[in-house]
């Protein structure tokens, strides 16, 4: 079982990561590069929480970003090729990570898994990992004004866990109580509310930020459909061989 899970996830994650890297190269990455031209031009002071009078206000990727406390710049990709390479590697690792979680769900499921049902599982992954968190924390371009990082990351995990649990109750349990509990769990993180910046009006034009939010969600939908299909297909194939 270990072998089947890891072989499926490695293959699907690798191919899915490569595939989405090509898509990102023509969709989200050009918007990120465009947005970076506006980064640091905001009229709002670029200060971290510890230095700022307002603890909720920081500028994403301000000038201090990437600079270590001793004043030295942290390592970063040197040129466009290196940047693309590291983005691709990061996408592959993310792809394998998500594929492992997806395929682990396959192994626990009693239903029939193939490429087609894999896409349905992939859509569930999209809903849990991308769509639900985007309602509270819309995909952000570099230069957007945001709340402090750690509370946002904490809310993201809360939202993913609650949505996954809620969706499981709605899909795999029967009875009115489960439906109510599932809906309440899915709504809970949004009732609590994601951390929001105290002020809005970053340096990046809203047209660009809007475009990025749409591009990020659209590419996430492509990624999860692809990952679901690849994972389901390999999962079925490795069963036939074993």
């Amino acid at each position: 079982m270990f072998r089947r899970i890891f072989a499926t996830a490695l293959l699907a994650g690798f191919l899915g990561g490569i595939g989405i890297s090509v898509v990102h190269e023509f969709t989200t990455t050009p918007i990120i590069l465009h947005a970076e031209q506006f980064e640091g031009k905001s009229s709002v002071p670029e200060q971290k929480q510890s230095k700022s009078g307002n603890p909720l206000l920081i500028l994403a990727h301000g000038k201090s970003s990437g600079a270590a406390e001793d004043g030295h710049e942290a390592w970063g990709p040197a040129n466009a090729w290196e940047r693309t390479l590291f983005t691709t590697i990061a996408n592959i690792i993310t792809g394998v990570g998500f594929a492992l979680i997806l395929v682990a769900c396959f192994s626990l499921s009693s239903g029939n898994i193939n490429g087609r049902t894999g896409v349905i599982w992939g859509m569930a992954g999209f809903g849990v990992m991308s769509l639900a968190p985007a309602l509270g924390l819309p995909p952000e371009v570099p230069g957007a004004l945001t709340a402090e990082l750690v509370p946002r990351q904490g809310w993201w995990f809360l939202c993913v866990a609650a949505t996954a649990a809620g969706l499981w109750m709605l899909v795999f349990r029967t009875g009115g109580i489960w439906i109510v509990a599932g809906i309440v769990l899915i709504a809970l993180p949004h009732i609590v509310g994601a951390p929001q910046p105290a002020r809005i009006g970053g340096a990046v034009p809203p047209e660009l930020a809007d475009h990025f939010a749409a591009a990020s969600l659209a590419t996430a939908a492509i990624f999860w459909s692809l990952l679901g299909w690849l994972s389901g297909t390999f999962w079925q194939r490795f069963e036939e061989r074993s």
Partner: protein
Amino acid sequence: MKEQTVKTQDVVATSSRKVMPAIVAMLFGAFLVIGVGFAHSDTVHNAAHDSRHSFAFPCH
């Protein structure tokens, strides 16, 4: 009675054979995603920067 116990043990054994690999895979998968998307190291952040934004992980 004895047969019943054996059957129960079989069910538990089958269930743990199924559940353990799934838990290990989920933990390892979460470890990879958190490493790429959430680690606070500046170097990891700079390397995975565009990937983090595109996947809409909360970033700086």
